[in-house]
């Protein structure tokens, strides 16, 4: 069994044993969705932000909680890259499970012209949120501080003027474009804008979080003793 796979599997097992936390991961997006259910465009965007917040928080706690055991594993030979992406895979898998549920909820409760775009919107949100949580955990390696930082990011994401240029710097700006494409009769350029923003954001977040994580976990290279 490869280290990446072993870390993924054990991370999923660990997450599955935090049942109350998983329940909140499932319920948080629902609250966001129900708040704006009367305005389909906004309901979708709020749902995505709820998913993003829940998954980013899950990633934060997963990475912070595993820090010491990952340090130990890296000392005895595990690759920090495998440890990082193993935990990311686990969070992404749980997040994709959650959005599968919400895809069905949206399909049943909204009249969405482009339903496939909803699936894309929710999946891309998970793939941005997982490295976002990991990056926050790498910069702020304590749970409370990290959770407050994520709260600030998500609050800003909700409150910032979506037409302003600053909005594009927010990690989930792509949700606005993809939600518009799913609901409104807009051109494919909105889809392209959303996918491009998602791709750049996800790569930047994942690369930065991975880099910081490797720097933190990589043991000092010690030479073999001369006999």
């Amino acid at each position, binding site marked *: 069994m*490869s280290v990446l796979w072993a870390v993924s599997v054990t991370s999923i097992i660990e997450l599955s*044993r935090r049942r109350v936390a998983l329940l909140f991961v499932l319920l948080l997006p629902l609250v966001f969705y129900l708040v704006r259910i009367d305005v389909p465009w906004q309901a979708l965007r709020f749902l995505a932000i709820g998913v993003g917040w829940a998954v980013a928080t899950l990633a934060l706690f997963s990475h912070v909680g595993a820090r010491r055991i990952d340090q130990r*594993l890296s*000392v005895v030979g595990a690759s920090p890259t495998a440890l990082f992406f193993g935990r990311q895979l686990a969070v992404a898998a749980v997040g994709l499970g959650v959005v599968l549920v919400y895809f069905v909820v949206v399909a049943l409760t909204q009249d969405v012209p482009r339903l496939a775009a909803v699936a894309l919107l929710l999946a891309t949100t998970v793939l941005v949120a997982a490295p976002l949580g990991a990056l926050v955990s790498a910069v702020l390696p304590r749970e409370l501080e990290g959770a407050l930082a994520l709260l600030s990011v998500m609050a800003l994401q909700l409150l910032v003027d979506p037409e302003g240029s600053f909005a594009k710097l927010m990690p989930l700006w792509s949700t606005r474009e993809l939600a518009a494409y799913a609901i409104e009769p807009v051109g494919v350029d909105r889809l392209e804008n959303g996918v491009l923003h998602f791709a750049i954001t996800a790569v930047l977040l994942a690369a930065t979080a991975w880099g910081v994580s490797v720097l933190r976990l990589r*043991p000092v*290279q010690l030479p073999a*003793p001369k006999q």
Partner: protein
Amino acid sequence: MSAEWRERLAAHLIDCGVEADEAARLTSDAVAEAAEMGRNPEEFYGPPISYAKTLAAAARTSGVPLDRQRGGVVLRLTGVSKRYRRRPVLRDVSLTLHGGEIAAVVGANGAGKSTLLNICAGITRASGGTVERTARVGYAPQQHGVAPLLTASEHFRLFGAVYGMGARKAVSVGDHLAKQLGWRPRPGVVASQLSGGTQQKLNVVLSELNRPDLILLDEPYQGFDQHSYVDFWDQVLTWRDAGAGVLVVTHLLHELDRVDHVLELPRVDES
């Protein structure tokens, strides 16, 4: 009766790691002492198996080192120092540890024992001096060495994957090593449900799962009961006899006569 007891005592002494010549000498002494008292050795000392353990332990603690094969150098510290910002923690620490030897790191709280172990593990970078260390290392930190939401067998599979072991083999080896520490992991019980002492046993087992050349242990017996503590030290001696080097941070001074090196760290601000 006396001859049979004598043979069995010698055999059990050898099983306990005593060299054949030394076992023969100890056996002769024991039989002669019983004869002087006009007693049968079986009545005088009891069953040979239990008396052999007592004699072997006495041989170790009486300063009579058991002959054993020492291997190559597994850890060499030369003038190692560490400072955090401007505060010195370690100064000029040197040690050469071979395979088949045990070194104990002792010192008061704040003397830098755990810092030194972290430097040996590669978690912390030394500020000065050189550290040479074998690549195959086992490491048991003092705290947070296990994942609270994983069972023992899940730990074995995870660490086994790092060591390139198959899942089944990792669990089998882990269960076997746990048994040597007097613990039989129960399926479905996660680490957070284990007692502190049993969590530490899991911590220790994970450090030796891949039969490393060097085992680094940071006060791993916290929470152990007396029996587990004895099992732990027996295990340390078994690793040593199997050729591994063991570096153990400890504050229990009565075990120091069982080790090959004692590295006493002074508080740097007091030295």
